[in-house]
């Protein structure tokens, strides 16, 4: 009898292990924005290793930034999810969290994880007191300047304030060194809101207050827009900026058609690549200047805007644990050390000797990332941003005065937010 029971026991274990092996062939679907940062083949490498180690099959899909939002929404609305993991732009945190699209991640994250990430970065993905995505990519804007042109214009080094920059630009234009010293991505897309946010920060404020109410039509917000318009008026920025997206602005700079620009981290590599860049060696990266009146307000006298991406789990996913394992893997410090072209989100990696050796400019980046301003964290963000873009662009195209444009934008935004 004992033998029989024991035999039965063994057989059941055997069957159960086969059973679970069958079920262990889990699968997750990942949708990733092929934008800055990791290129598709790098993501694929990570996924291949993860598959090998965990036995969980990973299906990857890459889309452009513009399409990611729509695809995630479509997946969330349907009864069965199309995706389990998706890369989340921080500006969607409030929107998705308030609609319940993302899974809350606080329970998955260990205290060690939470301690090793700077509050500024973690905070981008917090809404209503809960964390909705795991920080994945720390993208932010930096200052790029052409040192050769600066020297030719008779100056020693990059400007520390916006006013100083204007002086340098006017000298360059006068001496015929470059026709339009300033270039940027001011076309009517999300990039315009980003530019506006760091400039508002440079004048000492934010676009929305802590309560989530719009305050951009007075003070720093107004000064920022007036500054942008003045650059166009003085001929320091070309009309082309109004149609530039970030790659186009980068192209302007690396073709030698501009002396100053603000852009995301991706420009650094391309700027120094002699096969595509005409300014390799002359182009440098530094901290974005602030207005004179703002000096001393911030620890590093600089302002930037955050473009962080997180990895999130769709709330209607059936494979949440597998999804979290994948996320924990691709965001881990070990992986981030291997790809130091991207700014690591972990303090331990940022401060490591290894990182400092591999990326000599990491200290500049660390200062800049500590000075980022976020875009407004409100649920109807896509609409709010669209309204801002429209009116800012109208002011830049001289169809409206800055003050009037911002006032009208505030009105429409308040209507949308139900105030």
């Amino acid at each position: 009898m004992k033998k029989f029971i024991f035999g039965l026991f063994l057989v059941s274990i055997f069957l159960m292990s086969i059973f679970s092996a069958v079920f262990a062939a889990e699968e997750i679907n990942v949708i990733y924005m092929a934008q800055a940062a990791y290129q598709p083949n790098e993501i694929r490498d990570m996924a291949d290793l993860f598959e090998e180690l965990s036995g969980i099959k990973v299906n990857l899909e890459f889309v452009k930034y513009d399409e990611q939002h729509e695809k995630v929404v479509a997946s969330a609305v349907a009864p069965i999810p199309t995706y389990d993991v998706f890369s989340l732009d921080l500006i969607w945190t409030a929107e998705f969290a308030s609609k319940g699209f993302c899974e809350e991640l606080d329970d998955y994250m260990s205290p060690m994880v939470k301690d090793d990430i700077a509050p500024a970065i973690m905070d981008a993905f917090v809404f209503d007191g809960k964390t909705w995505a795991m920080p994945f990519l720390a993208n932010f804007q930096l200052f790029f300047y052409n040192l050769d042109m600066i020297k030719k214009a008779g100056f020693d080094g990059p400007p520390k304030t916006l006013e100083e920059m204007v002086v340098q630009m006017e000298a360059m234009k006068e001496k015929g060194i470059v026709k339009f010293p300033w270039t940027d991505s001011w076309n009517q897309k999300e990039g315009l809101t980003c530019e506006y946010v760091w400039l508002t920060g440079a004048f000492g404020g934010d676009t929305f207050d802590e309560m989530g109410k719009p305050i951009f039509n007075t003070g720093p917000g107004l000064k920022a827009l007036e500054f942008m318009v003045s650059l166009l008026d003085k001929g320091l920025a070309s009309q082309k900026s109004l149609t530039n997206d970030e790659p186009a602005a980068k192209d302007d700079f690396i073709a030698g058609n501009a002396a100053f620009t603000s852009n995301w981290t991706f420009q650094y590599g391309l700027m120094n690549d002699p096969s595509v860049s005409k300014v390799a060696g002359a182009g440098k990266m530094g901290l974005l200047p602030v207005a004179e009146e703002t000096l001393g307000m911030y620890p590093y006298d600089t302002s930037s805007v955050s473009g962080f991406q997180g990895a999130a789990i769709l709330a209607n996913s059936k494979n949440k644990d597998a999804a979290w394992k994948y996320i924990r893997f691709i965001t881990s410090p070990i992986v981030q050390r291997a790809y130091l072209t991207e700014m690591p989100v972990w303090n331990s990696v940022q401060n490591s000797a290894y990182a400092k050796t591999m990326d000599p400019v990491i200290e500049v980046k660390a200062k800049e990332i500590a000075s980022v301003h976020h875009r407004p964290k409100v649920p109807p963000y896509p609409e709010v941003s669209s309204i801002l873009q429209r009116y800012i662009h109208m002011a830049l195209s001289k169809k409206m005065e800055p003050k009037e444009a911002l006032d009208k934008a505030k009105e429409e935004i308040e209507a949308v937010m139900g105030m």
Partner: protein
Amino acid sequence: MFLKGKIRKTISRIILYFLVIFIILWTLAPFTWLFLSGIFPHQELLSDRATNWFPKNPTLKNYSSMFNMKSHIGQRFVFAFRNSLIISGSVTIICLLFGTMAAYALARLKFPFKNNIVMSLISIRMIPTVALVIPFFVIIRSFDYLFIQINSQFHLYDTKLNLVILYVTFILGFVIWIMRGFFLTIPHELEEAARIDGCSRVQALIKIILPLSAPGLVATGIFTFLLAWDEFVLALVFTKTTNSITVPVFITSLGSQYIHAFDQIAASGFIASLPPIILALVFQKFLIKGLTAGSTKG
């Protein structure tokens, strides 16, 4: 007097040839530029156009990489190309089959509400496709949910079948409308003669009417193929993997947010335009005859 007439004639001939050359340039210039852009190596892409119309180091790499099954791009392109061919082909066959039958009924047979049906068929095309995207998506995903509940492997999202169904629905009304026009131009007498000889209506349709409207069929077929080959919005929303992506979706996905890959876009774009062009060139004789006969009778 005589000389004046001759001079006038010569001048008008010169103007004519001038216009002909204009038409040729107008039509071919952008195409040639498209092809040339495809043979630029990536580094030379951003060179000054005033002096660089032709690359210093032309390369066929962009074109060949589209078919290189070992590279990711090559894989996706070949699959997208295949999918598009299958989808467009199926849509064309189905639409011609069902559409012709319905068009015949509307052109020849008597029954109530005929005109209303015709109007409703074309009205389908008046709603912007974007409007129906979310309802479609929710409905299709709900179906898939049902399929999974009853343990079926079958699903609709991310399949070619899904796109075929959607495209047929949108294009069918159009096909019916045009084919009906063709049928209306064919004199009743021919059919009457056949029926007196003992043919049924259906036989008359197959033996007499169809051959006569062959140009119309060809024209409508090409038009349908083009509409399906071209379609972008629905494909974008309903495709995911190489199982179902179509060429327009592939081309839109080229490059990244930070790199404008015009060389790749040009190469794949040029190749993508070949099937419709080949079809159009092969059938262009029929095309002219076909389009006009159908249209003048609305």
